[in-house]
């Protein structure tokens, strides 16, 4: 199991609303999505390291949220609900992608006769690369706690864990980042 309480994408879908409610539901969802979209894309990028994949993961998470909108909007914290969907989707995609495709190492790039923008990757995302080496739960906790600035209780709600688990996992993640060779090479405290 990935998290303390894994629900995956929303499994129980809307079974009560009628089509008459559709326009207002779409309007309400549209406002919700527009406000959260940039943050969700960035969170997904932090989790996956792939901008295109991040947009797709964010879309998939929001589509799942729309499919169960009645449940999401009645949730105590709809944002936590959507984040949780997104994190689970991104983990599955990330894992599938790692299995399906060989991980790219910038150092292995060919001596290209053409300009190769991939060479910039190593410079840009050393920290994110180190974060993505963390186990899935720790990766999510680092991003929610240190980038999204959520409280331990909010992170716990988003992951279905206890706040104590969040604290302990955050501590372990931080320790691993301190030991990260990539960060050490780049001077992590700069």
């Amino acid at each position, binding site marked *: 199991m990935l998290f303390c309480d894994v629900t995956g994408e929303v499994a129980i879908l*809307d079974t009560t609303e009628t089509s008459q409610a559709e326009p207002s539901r779409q309007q309400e969802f549209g406002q919700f999505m527009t406000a959260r979209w940039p943050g969700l894309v960035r969170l997904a990028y932090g989790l996956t390291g792939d901008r295109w994949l991040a947009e797709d993961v964010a879309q998939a998470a*929001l589509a799942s949220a729309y499919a169960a909108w009645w449940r999401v909007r009645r949730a105590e914290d709809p944002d936590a609900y959507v984040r949780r969907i997104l994190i689970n989707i991104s983990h599955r995609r990330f894992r599938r992608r790692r299995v399906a*495709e060989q991980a790219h190492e910038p150092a292995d*790039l060919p001596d290209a006769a053409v300009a190769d923008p*991939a060479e910039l990757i190593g410079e840009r995302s050393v920290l994110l690369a180190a974060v993505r080496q963390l186990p899935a739960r720790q990766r999510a906790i680092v991003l929610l706690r*240190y980038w999204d600035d959520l409280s331990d209780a909010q992170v716990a709600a988003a992951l279905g864990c206890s706040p104590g688990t969040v604290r302990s996992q955050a501590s372990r993640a931080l320790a691993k980042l301190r030991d990260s060779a990539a960060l050490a090479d780049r001077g992590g*405290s700069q």
Partner: protein
Amino acid sequence: MTGIDEQTLSRRLHQELDPLPAPPAPVGAVIRRGAARRARHWMATASGLAAAAAVAAAVPLLAGRVQPAAHLGRDVRASHTVPSATTGSTGRPAAPVLTGSTFAAGTAAGRPWRLSVRNIADPGARCLPAILLNATDGYLPPTGAGVAGGIASLAFLTSVPGQPATGYAALRVSPDVTRLTVGLRDGRTLALHPVPVQACGRRLPLAGFSYPQSGVATITAYAGAQVLARVTPPASLFTGAGHYAAPGTPGSAGSTLRLVPGVWQQLWRTPSAVASGLLASGRLDGTQWRISVQLGAAGDCFVGATFDGHAATQATDCVPIVPPPAGAGTLQRFVLQQRTLHQHTGLTGYAGLAGPRTAYLVARLSDGRSVRVRPAQAGGRRYLALALPAGLTVTGVTGYDRAGQPIARW
């Protein structure tokens, strides 16, 4: 040790993630995706009920006249039915669109199989429905409206890699067909029901089955008790003697291609190319070359042409029709120009399909150089092609997305 603390980590994460530009929120697309997801959930629920009803209905049939052998009962079945409407009380869409719809499935020679319909064009391009065996080997059924009187199209997959003893058939029937019987050459009889599948805005009633190596004797379509059509496929289809007219040369007896495993044989003549287009061209060692694609009855055919100022050559390499690959793309090698007494160099062609995310590939060559390859559109699909002098080969490829990020390498 890096000395990174919580504050530093937070600051650096903000530095890296906050400037990331996010495109405008695609609200409409997400709502459509979410609605489709809801519809699929309802389809799954309704299909479960329909399957239970089908099992109940099949019991008297199995006890009646058509009594396939025990293993054949598992071999052939239409596994999915599409409910005509969902329950009104919930206000669900009356006719949700199925994508990747399976209309027949079973087990043949111990291997599971399924026939499904899927759009094989790139997302956002024209819709191009194909019937696929196990999500790979496909053919393009005619989708024109207004077929009447039984069987509109019939195709056989007689050569399946790794399955020498099994063939597959897929039919598009007219809407008035209620059932089909298939007489096998080994004396057994199959009973099928067409399954309406919504594909690219059209409703296609489809049926499919697997058959043993000996082949199919007759296929009969019924509307109730009335016979609408009866087809007797030629025996040559099942003897391994199949061939295709070369693309662009319909009816030319002198231009035939070998039977390619994974390419379907359509019983009636269809347009030789559903789509075609130039993929790449250039000049190498004084020889002009061009590689084009013809997508149609013979599969995905890459046609290479050369002209060295004295003589012109043409080479065609056909492969099974497959959906766009999930990764960066595929490249396969073929002889673009034979090395002859008069053409000393020879040329090697590479062609394949680009993945939906692939903006370009960087192909590493055996002499250490690299070459960038951009996809070209044809029929809503994106293809890759390049030509090299005969002594050079592609040793590796890295695919990049539109943002210039590497997405896969091999």
